[in-house]
């Protein structure tokens, strides 16, 4: 299969490969796809206090188009607000990379990864706020709050949350 030059460029020089601490409250992690289907993407964003994405990292198991889609997504995410980040659509990625029809699912997966990372970040923030409110009301049951399903408990490594994908 002939790849576009942009895919080859991202594949050979992937941007922002790496990991961030998924237990960090300012980090949102999206892990989508399945090994059995031949592609898994993990996309992470670090969100500053002003609500802007200051950093983005990815790791991808998948074909060249999947790697390029996630690499491009991290490039586009940096500097955006969360609201702006949600506007990145699979169509934009597919267009930018000139993906052939059989590889469109790679761009869909990248969009899912973005959404999933944002959701994870928002969930963490909500849990953090809930924890702070509770702590203000009553300093005692802080321990209990950690048991709520949305709050990542420290010490115990939680498995990454895998988002479900839209039907196609």
């Amino acid at each position, binding site marked *: 299969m002939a790849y576009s030059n942009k895919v080859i460029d991202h*594949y050979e020089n992937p941007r922002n490969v790496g990991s961030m601490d998924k237990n960090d409250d300012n980090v949102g992690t999206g892990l989508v796809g399945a090994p059995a289907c031949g592609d*898994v993407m993990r996309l992470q964003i670090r969100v500053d206090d002003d609500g802007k994405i200051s950093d983005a990292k990815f790791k*991808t*198991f998948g074909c060249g188009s999947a790697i390029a889609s996630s690499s491009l997504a991290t490039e586009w995410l940096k500097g955006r607000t969360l609201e702006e980040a949600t506007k990145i659509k699979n169509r934009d990625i597919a267009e930018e990379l000139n993906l052939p029809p059989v590889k469109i699912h790679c761009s869909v997966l990248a969009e899912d990864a973005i959404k999933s990372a944002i959701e994870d970040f928002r969930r963490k923030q909500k849990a953090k706020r809930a924890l702070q409110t509770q702590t203000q009301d009553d300093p005692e049951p802080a321990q209990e709050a950690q048991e709520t399903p949305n709050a990542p408990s420290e010490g115990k490594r939680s*498995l990454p949350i895998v988002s479900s994908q839209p039907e196609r």
Partner: protein
Amino acid sequence: MAVNLPIYMDYSATTPVDPRVLEEMMPYFSEKYGNAASRSHAYGWTAEAAVEAAREKISAFLGGSSGKEVVFTSGATEADNLALKGVADYYASKGNHIITTTIEHKAILDTAKRLRKQGFEITYIPVDRQGLVDPDEIRKAITDKTILVSVMLANNEVGTIQPLEQIGAITREKGVLLHTDAVQGLGKIPFDVTRTHADLVSISAHKMYGPKGIGALWVRRSKPRVRLVAQMDGGGHEFGMRSGTLNVPGIVGFAKAVEICEQEMAQESERTKTLRDKLRHGIQDHLEEVNLNGSIEHRLPGNLNLSFAFVEGEAMMMAIKDVAVSSGSACTSASLEPSYVLKAMGVGDELAHSSIRFGIGRFTTEEEVDYVAKLVVEKVRKLREMSPLYEMYKEGIDLKSVQWAAH
């Protein structure tokens, strides 16, 4: 010595025409261009003589008793079609049951599928983790309605060599015809229609350093005499089993390719096996979690099929783009389905998606093998650094315990 890029390491897909074969073919394009079916002039007689000599040579190579047992076709796909459909049509009154395996080439599987639509019953014998068929399973599957058993000599993806002699003993005992698609194994491992009791054999020239576009179906003529209904109607060529003007240059090249294999097979297979093992160790000794797919013991000398865990096959092929190999994962097609052969062997989808087939052959050099081994190790390491699955594996997370969202 420097290597020339790209490196061809896909000898199971096709092989280059040996220069000795090409040389033999040339006059049949330019000077001796007669139609082998022309009985009225010297051009025809010359072509016919060349074709008849080729028949004898090819049949003898298979252990046959007569050149008349060779029915030339456009290739092995046509030979497979002719064997299954031709036997099914001729013996339909005797029975409607055909037995084959789950790892056959698509030319068999899709033909069987069509026959099923026409009312035939097809039994698919599974293979074990090593990619081998158990002859006992075939014995158990045979009924009084069974007319044909079709089992490949060696698999095209994982190179596993099937126990044809044992299978042939069973089919002969039960009075059932045995067909084998011998394309991958012929010229690389010894094969003989007497020892295997094969009644029909599909062969192809381009897998053994001959030209593309020529193959044959060997059809036993005595004990038992196998009958077929032709699937191509016309001038009644090839003993009425396959009409169409013969591809004389192709046939001449095919015979020369067979002659070279006959003379050099033992030595060549030893050499390709040594190179194959060198490639395997050059990769496996330097990388963790690299699995060999298929039996090492019952395997074609030039075949190496490896799964690189945590790395996707197509990305891998892109990383080693200067090396021509195949991915067991058919991700390049719209289907996104991993190899049905690996799945039939019980290789998990994730490892099936991570598999690469290396094919070593006559013109592969040791320098090329060294180069490829080094390149593969380097690229797998790079891709694993990029793989979330490798990171999770390194953290001790059992990937099977993760609830993945299938898509």
